[in-house]
């Protein structure tokens, strides 16, 4: 069975005002879902479940396929009540895990995948980027993602299907695990969650990352521009921000925004290691969104784990399948 989770809220936040982010309309998500469904229909796959949402992305996609291509796409809605927030993605992932999904295609940003990762267990993800400045999900054409999902569903012997387990950052409040991040955790002096996105660099004091790429933007890029950390490497990175005791680096911090960041202490974050946050009170932003508030007296720690979600290596999977004749039909 193939699961699909499309976050109707991604791609519309305040970064369109404070940076040069563009609106990602839900009609484009409908189009992507259509392209995925065409591929799955073409492969004869009918065991498909998708998260319902208030924008009725699935209904619109199925209607358009029936009207424009005369394709009667058979897709079931996951039986759940939507709260119209990120809990929906986590809940949908849990239910897809229970239903025995072979993979979950996600449409959203780092935040969406973080929510999905909380519930998907060991079901591998095919994350498509429809958010703003994303590091975890990739810009992959929906049709190609659909082809990888076909391999996930039909390669029952797992001869070609390739996945990779991701790292994650675990957030502990007073020694209890309270949340997680897939790419970065930024400690800020902000008092409120508010518009969630991070754009006030003066408020950021410490950053933890699982990966640091120079070809990305955002918190991960801060480290990526002086100490790249590969996504499949064993370690992460801790960086102290704002103190003029180290050096500065010019970094693309958001779409169309380059800023000079002062960096203090830098150290590798080892698997299983927890680092105590030095900032006395504020909010921890996870994968770019302010999430976990903490007050004076709270003991806040962040650690690196190698128990994040599995992701499908789309290129490797398709290449391997192609070489193995998976797509070939002989006469």
């Amino acid at each position, binding site marked *: 069975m193939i699961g699909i989770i499309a976050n109707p809220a991604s791609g*519309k936040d305040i970064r369109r005002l404070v940076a040069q982010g563009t609106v990602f309309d*839900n009609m484009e998500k409908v189009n992507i879902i259509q392209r995925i469904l065409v591929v799955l229909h073409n492969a004869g796959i009918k065991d498909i479940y998708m998260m319902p949402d208030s924008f009725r992305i699935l209904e619109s996609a199925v209607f358009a396929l029936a009207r424009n291509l005369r394709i009667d796409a058979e897709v079931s809605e996951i039986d759940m009540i939507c709260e119209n927030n990120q809990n929906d993605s986590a809940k949908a992932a849990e239910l897809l895990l229970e239903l025995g999904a072979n993979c979950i295609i996600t449409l959203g940003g780092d935040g969406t995948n973080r929510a999905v990762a909380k519930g998907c267990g060991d079901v591998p993800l095919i994350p498509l980027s429809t958010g703003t400045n994303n590091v975890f999900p990739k810009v992959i054409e929906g049709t190609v993602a659909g082809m990888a999902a076909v391999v996930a569903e039909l390669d029952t012997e797992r001869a070609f299907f390739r996945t990779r387990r991701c790292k994650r950052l675990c957030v502990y409040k007073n020694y209890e695990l309270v949340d997680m991040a897939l790419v970065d955790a930024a400690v800020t002096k902000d008092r409120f969650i508010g518009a969630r996105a991070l754009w006030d660099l003066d408020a950021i004091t410490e950053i933890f990352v699982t990966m640091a790429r120079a070809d990305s933007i955002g918190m991960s890029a801060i480290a990526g521009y002086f100490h790249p950390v590969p996504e499949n490497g064993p370690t992460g990175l801790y960086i102290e921000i704002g103190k003029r005791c180290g050096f500065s680096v010019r970094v693309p911090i958001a779409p169309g925004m380059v800023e000079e960041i002062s960096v203090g202490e830098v150290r590798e974050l080892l698997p299983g290691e927890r680092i105590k946050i030095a900032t006395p009170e504020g909010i921890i932003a996870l994968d770019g969104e302010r999430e976990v508030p903490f007050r004076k007296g709270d003991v806040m720690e962040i650690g690196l784990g190698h128990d994040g979600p599995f992701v499908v290596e789309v290129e490797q999977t398709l290449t391997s399948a192609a070489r193995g004749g998976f797509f070939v039909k002989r006469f």
Partner: protein
Amino acid sequence: MKLTDNDLIGLYRDMVYIRQFETRVQELFAAGVLPGFIHLGIGQEACMAGTCFNLVDGDIIGATHREHGVLLCRGVDGKAIMAELYGKVTGTCKGKGGSMHACGLKQGALGNNAILGPAQTIVNGFAYAHKFRKNGKVAVTMFGDGASNRGEFHEGLNFASIWNLPSIYIINNNGYAISVPKSKQQKVEDLSARAAGYGIPGVQIDGNDIITVVETVGEAVKRAREGGGPSLIELKTYRWRGHFEGDPTPYRTAEELESWKKKDPIARFEKVLADQGIAKQKDFDGIAAEVKTKVDECQKFAEDSPWPPLSEIYTDIYYHEEGSVQQ
């Protein structure tokens, strides 16, 4: 945005003032005391208070008949607003405009039009003047999802964008155009996406979270003041009452209403203030009592005020008229 404790308490007080004022209007209308038509903004307090927080003297806002709260937050005397609703001579329009046209021109709060939509072009005139004078002021228009289907919305956005005006378009998307649900009035899913057609930023946010509204509108206002041009902000919210007072709301379910009451912007903000140690229940009770006294005074002022004299019936109908219609 750095908000002080005083800012936060002020925002809370503004929302409570709107809620209590509107609730009193609801009761007075139900009792047959108030004439005319009444449209209430209960449930949308964060949209109004959070937007107005970012405005200063000289800024302009043109809202709708559902935004008595905008007038309150812009500093228009609640007594004069209530008197206007009563149709008394001490009202903001000398009792001739009622709820539909209450205004506060000195505070930059334009009166509503009989049909929703024209404010979306009118504010551009003010925005153009602001730009011409280089005074750093902005012009805001606030309207509903239904009004975003009108021609003025599109004409206004096009004009604002082509002239790079300090205009901010705020949609209070409460899900219904009178009685028509959003799904039956708009093919486009996200109203904020309409900004792309005019080459300006469009943002969709939770309109029931006052901090989010303050931050987002604040950034749009800052951008406009600095010459960055117009923005479109979609606030997702819900009106607890019908379109008008007396509307039996057959087009929505009790469950839907209850689900939105759980997202009450005031209760949510109380939790934030309490969690942050900024205010306690006794502080909330104190503000509620203080606001109640204020609303009582508004009502008493309106009740005690005289009706407009018959001799005023033709006054203010035409500009330069003085008491009679010219033949």
